[in-house]
């Protein structure tokens, strides 16, 4: 069969089934959009992780007046101990940089955080512990720092800010997985609709396909117009879905980002990557649905 002839047959088919074609396009658009939102949620979680893990530190609190852990039984940290800890930290290869926070600095920060409350008046600088703020090259390697320093005389405790963030990201992860699951289910729905639509189209055109068969059309050429109709509907639906995701990105940039300054947001690259993945999904799902349906309903 010639390309011109096939094109004409496909356009005729799409026109004759216009209501079903529209239904398929809308369903594909919606389901791919939902899946796209899931993909963007995934990107967003990744962006936030990068942003936050880049800022978190390990805090090594040194023994002070009020410390009561067993390692502080010898009283507040001595100058020797402090020097030893600092030089040990600086020789650890996984450490990116080390910052020493003195009691005075801790007090300044404390006053700032609890400004205007009664707490400020009841606390003095020497009640607050001095600490080392340690930034790791890879925040996941906290365990190494922990095993090297906790339990050492002069060190009260070793704290990882990651544990707090991890709870937050666990929650975000659940939300993201939910979005992806909804997206996948709706793509499945779209596949079923495509399959059903092609079944109806095959039934509506049984005269044509019957005649094609009689004059010796190959299986492939009988099925090709139907397959192309499914793919074209999927591509139009994908175009709409990409439009919706782009609109979402613009909305986030214009309205959400100025309000939520504590994080970065997914970029246009993430939108295009998601869009590419949606195109592949749309084509593959449509092709599989068509193939399975047509094999059953358009036998030679």
């Amino acid at each position, binding site marked *: 069969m*010639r390309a011109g002839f096939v094109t004409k047959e496909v356009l005729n088919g799409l026109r004759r089934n216009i209501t079903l074609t529209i239904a398929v396009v809308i369903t594909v658009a919606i389901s791919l959009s939902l899946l796209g939102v899931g993909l963007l949620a995934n990107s967003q979680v990744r962006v936030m992780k990068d942003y936050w893990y880049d800022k978190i530190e390990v805090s090594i609190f040194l023994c002070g007046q009020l410390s009561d852990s067993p390692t502080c039984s010898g009283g507040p940290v001595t100058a020797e101990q402090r020097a030893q800890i600092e030089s040990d930290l600086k020789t650890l290869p996984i450490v990116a940089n080390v910052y020493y926070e003195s009691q005075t600095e801790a007090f300044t920060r404390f006053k700032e955080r609890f400004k205007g409350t009664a707490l400020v008046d009841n606390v003095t600088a020497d009640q607050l512990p001095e600490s080392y703020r340690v930034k790791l090259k890879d925040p996941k390697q906290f365990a190494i720092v922990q095993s090297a320093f906790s339990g050492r005389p002069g060190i009260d405790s070793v704290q990882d800010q990651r544990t707090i963030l991890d709870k937050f990201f666990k929650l975000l992860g659940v939300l993201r997985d939910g979005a992806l699951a909804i997206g996948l289910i709706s793509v499945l729905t779209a596949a079923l609709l495509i399959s059903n639509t092609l079944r109806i189209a095959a039934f509506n055109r049984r005269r044509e396909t019957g005649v094609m068969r009689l*004059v010796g059309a190959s*299986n492939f050429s009988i099925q090709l117009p139907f397959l192309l109709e499914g793919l074209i509907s999927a591509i139009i639906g994908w175009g709409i879905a990409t439009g919706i995701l782009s609109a979402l990105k613009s909305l986030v940039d214009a309205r959400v980002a100025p309000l939520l300054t504590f994080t970065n947001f997914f970029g246009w690259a993430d939108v295009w990557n998601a869009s590419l993945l949606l195109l592949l999904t749309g084509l593959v799902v449509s092709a599989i649905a068509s193939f399975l349906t047509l094999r059953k309903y358009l036998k030679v």
Partner: protein
Amino acid sequence: MIRCENVTKTYSKQDRPALDSVTLEVAKGEFVFLVGQSGSGKSTFLRLILREEKVTSGRMYVAGKDLSTLSQWKVPEFRRGIGTVFQDYRLLPNKTVSENVAFAMQIVGAAPKEIAREVPEVLELVGLDDYGHRMPAELSGGEQQRVAIARAFINKPQILIADEPTGNLDPTMSVGIMKLLDRINRTGTTVVMATHDDKIVDQMRKRVIELENGLVVRDQVRGIYGYSG
């Protein structure tokens, strides 16, 4: 051209065979009438020739192919060598007469130039020179059947199969269709036609094969319709 050896066809879920151990041969260029009462197996026989159905047992050779071993993907190519005409014309209602005839050529991938040259020629052969732009619904039954014959003939098949082609036509139109089929037969095309039309069979005096309950009960050269019913 067509050779059957003990061909039996039993449809699934049926206990009585629709064709029962049929053995016969049709030579190249022959014209054969297939007669017999309703349900005697005429259409079944034609469907086996076209490989729309598979034989249950026995061997069937058509146009040099052994149909029992012909693989499924080769069936379309095999069918391009066989033209088909049916009682209900089977035209595409949303295509013009020319487009209907051209369809058979487009399916086999003929060049547009070739199509533009041959479609008017065939329409002229079937006597519909000026009807190319009409829709099937604007034609009489006889004219529609001529379009169907034009479509069946345009790829120059070796065999033409006709299942009651005059079944819906009045006697004058039927005579016209028969003249056309006769003409096609004279170009060397083997024609096998199932019919209930006694007058036509008696007039043409061609080979007649009569089926009864799936059995060949008569095979007569220059035969007549020969039974009432």
